[in-house]
């Protein structure tokens, strides 16, 4: 009897396994969002109970919220029930089999950016052989990190492997009900990165999503959590200068950073999603909530971003400066062209004594685009001796674009000092004349001037990124003069 029992049990198990596997591999959820979808999603991802509860709570909060309308952007209403909230990783045979099948426009851009051939294949989503250069690179890279004790893995893996860390920090900076898109993300996030730097460790490498093998398909609801324990340091690069092939129109990501005492996090982003064509058709909606908390004394969080892509960008990387002497920085270049719209900026919330923050924002608008800086600098009564300096400059190229500044400054502490400066100007005729007179063609001249305008931000980027970012601006601005 006993044997039969075991056999039966095994049989049941096998069948179950089989069904389960099919669900992961072949299933793409039918469009629509309800609690069952979230339960299924959580089950497919084999998440512990607390995650499901957390997702459901977020979903219930989301149901009570309205689409935010305060941003200076305009897009058709999104039907959240027309989106599929889970799709299994693509099979090799569904992908383009070689570069010949890829949109030639995309290839031309790769050419201009000088991207190595094998990388082009990966970026364009071409099915590549498993034995691929970067795999070996990634392996050595992983070994090095493990040696230092750094955890760097997909967040879905972290939920299973390090549930105590995830439970402690997930949603601690961006609560599930923080805003409409953050709530949506919390309910349905697909994947993303998890980073934990142990006490006193200086991360030996710059972490980049590019090297994470699983990063290939994180889906449209990405979630990133970075925790830097006491005295640690990490530099994290997100995105890539090359345009990525992507089929999802709505991207609602959440990034949370936690810096404990004396810890430092440097987070750099280059965002170059598909911006739509020159008539404003198509393009990605990028609605991102990014926030870092400087919890410990002397901690520091620095955001650097170069935003050139997406049809609509809605993004405010922020810092909550709670620890004494903590520092928040925000360096941003946002470029819009054709019909792109960007409403981006930062929030610096000063809670602790002697906290300091710097905001440098450069907005460039060309074509018929609209580019807005929206920021908040807030000093709470406890922010004794706090300091902020803000500079936001806008550059206009063409007479049909818009550049806007909406800075909110709130102070409740008399010893806190805040300075805000903003200017708007165009590429002047004199500057152009000077360049032309020296034999530089107009397009190159504009690119030179724009690069100069952005220098303050580019110098904050990791070196090779800075070079690429300069090139990227050049490509993005093509056709804006003459």
């Amino acid at each position, binding site marked *: 009897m006993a044997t039969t029992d075991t056999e039966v049990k095994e049989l049941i198990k096998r069948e179950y396994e089989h069904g389960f596997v099919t669900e992961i591999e072949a299933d793409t959820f039918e469009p629509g969002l309800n609690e069952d979808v979230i339960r299924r999603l959580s089950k497919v991802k084999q998440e512990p109970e607390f995650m499901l509860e957390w997702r459901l709570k977020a979903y219930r909060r989301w149901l009570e919220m309205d689409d935010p309308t305060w941003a200076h952007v305009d897009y058709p209403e999104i039907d959240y029930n027309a989106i599929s909230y889970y799709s299994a990783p693509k099979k090799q045979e569904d992908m383009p089999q070689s570069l010949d099948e890829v949109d030639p426009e995309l290839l031309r851009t790769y050419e201009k950016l000088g991207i190595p051939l094998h990388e082009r294949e990966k970026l364009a989503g071409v099915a590549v052989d498993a034995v691929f250069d970067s795999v070996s690179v990634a392996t050595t890279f992983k070994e090095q990190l493990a040696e230092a004790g750094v955890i760097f893995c997909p967040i879905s893996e972290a939920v299973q492997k390090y549930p105590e860390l995830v439970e402690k920090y997930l949603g601690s900076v961006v609560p599930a009900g923080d805003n409409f898109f953050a709530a949506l993300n919390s309910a349905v996030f697909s994947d993303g990165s998890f980073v934990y730097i142990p006490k006193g460790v200086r991360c030996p490498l710059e972490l980049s999503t590019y090297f994470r093998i699983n990063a290939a398909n994180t889906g449209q609801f990405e979630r990133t959590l970075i925790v830097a324990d006491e005295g640690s340091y990490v530099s994290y690069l997100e995105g890539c200068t090359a345009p990525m092939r992507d089929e999802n129109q709505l991207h609602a990501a959440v990034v949370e950073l936690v810096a404990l005492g004396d810890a430092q996090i440097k987070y750099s982003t280059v965002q170059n999603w598909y911006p739509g064509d020159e008539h404003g058709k198509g393009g990605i909606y990028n609605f991102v909530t990014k926030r870092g908390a400087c919890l410990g004394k002397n901690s520091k969080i620095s955001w650097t971003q170069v935003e050139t892509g997406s049809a609509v960008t809605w993004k405010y990387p922020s810092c909550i400066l709670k620890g004494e002497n903590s520092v928040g920085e925000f360096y941003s270049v946002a470029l819009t062209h054709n019909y792109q719209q960007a409403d981006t900026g930062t929030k610096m919330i000063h809670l602790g004594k002697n906290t300091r923050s710097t905001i440098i924002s450069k907005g460039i608008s060309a074509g018929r685009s609209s580019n807005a800086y929206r920021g908040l600098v807030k000093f709470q009564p406890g922010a004794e001796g706090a300091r902020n300096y803000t500079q936001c400059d*806008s550059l206009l190229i*063409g007479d049909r674009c818009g550049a*806007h*500044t909406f800075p909110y400054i709130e102070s*409740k502490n008399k010893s806190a*000092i*805040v300075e*805000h400066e903003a200017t708007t100007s165009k590429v002047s005729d004199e500057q152009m004349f000077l360049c032309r007179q020296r034999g530089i063609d107009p397009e190159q001249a504009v690119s030179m001037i724009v690069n100069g305008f952005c220098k303050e931000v580019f110098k904050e980027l990791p070196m090779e990124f800075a070079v690429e970012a300069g090139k990227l601006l050049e490509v993005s601005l093509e056709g804006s003069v003459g």
Partner: protein
Amino acid sequence: MKTAPMLSSAFLHPAGQTLPEPLLALRRERAGRLVDMPLPTRKTENWKYSSRHLKLADDMAISLPVGGKTGHSLAVPGYKVVFVNGVMIPEASEFPDFDGLSIRSFNDLPEEDAGKLADRLGSTLDPKQVQFAHLNGARFEDGLLIQLKPGAVLDQPLFVIHETVGDASGSAYPRVFVDAGANSQMTLVEEYISDGDAPVLVDTVTEFNLADGANLTSIRLNMEGENVQHIGATGVVQQRNSRFESHCVGFGGPLRRHDLQVRLEGEGAETKLNGVVVTQGKQHYDNHTSIDHVAAHCNSEETYRNIAADESHAVFNGRIHIHQDAQQSNADMNNKNLLLSSKAEIDTKPELEIYADDVKCAHGATIGQLDRIALFYLVSRGIGRRQANVLLTMAFINELVEQIPVEAVRETAQTRLNEFFEQTFIEEN
């Protein structure tokens, strides 16, 4: 979803019916728009920081009695028109004897003129931004129409004294409409004062229309008492080569709100807006300004300074909007704030909205306290700490007070500022 509180319908019924018919019709039309007007809440962007100070009780809906006593007899060097609770008191006024200028009460207008005026009342304001100007439109009982003929130059400033006598709860709706002909010139001083101590609402609208080449200086002095909630709107429309200069001096109260909107519609127009606000105790003052560069080649310059002491709250919101065809615009906005106590709060939002490329726009804003090094310098030279504080604070705003072109106003402002310093800086040993 919580529903926003609505304006009580008690506020929609004006008392006096003495106005000419076209203005009564206008009033009815405005009242119609106000049915279902939601009161501003913290979520209402342009009332974000002030909505919690707005406290409208139903008994404040009653129009304050007309023709009451004038509590103050102000000696002003020049011409004056006195309004009490929003209605003109001709006996207390001294009209200029000057052909180029016509000053009439709305109640005295012949039907035809009233009809023309009714078409234009409220035209200088952006209806979406100033809900309370509609309330004024639904409730005004009188008003002042000032018409300056082309080329006329008024030799002395014209004072318009708006006094609110609040012996019992109620509200008043003063209204002024100014039409400055081509190349005319005048200085208008609006003083808001009050008497009595019952809680009252003063809801004002002042409108300026500047024809080509007109040159107008407006001074607004707000010195009402602690019982007055003041919500005012000023609209300015400028034609070609006109020049407008505004000086606002405000002392806080339970709620002070002023919206100043300037539209530069003609090429070469120029505007200059200065503002000084001091608040103490639990006072609140909120200045919202907006400058619309509609035409090309216009200049605007704006400087506002706030000082907040004790547990008070000062707000500044400045908006510059450069329209698509307003090439060669120059706009400069500057807002500096002094926070004298850690229980006080200052909020500022200098906004730029730019749709033209060949422009020069800049704005700057700071919030801070007195410079310690400057204080140390003064103290090291034997000046008492308190005196040093007063000196530096004075220097901070005198730069603007000194620019007020009418001496009498400067003096009144100085006296009030000195009182403020007396109370704010206590002798330290």
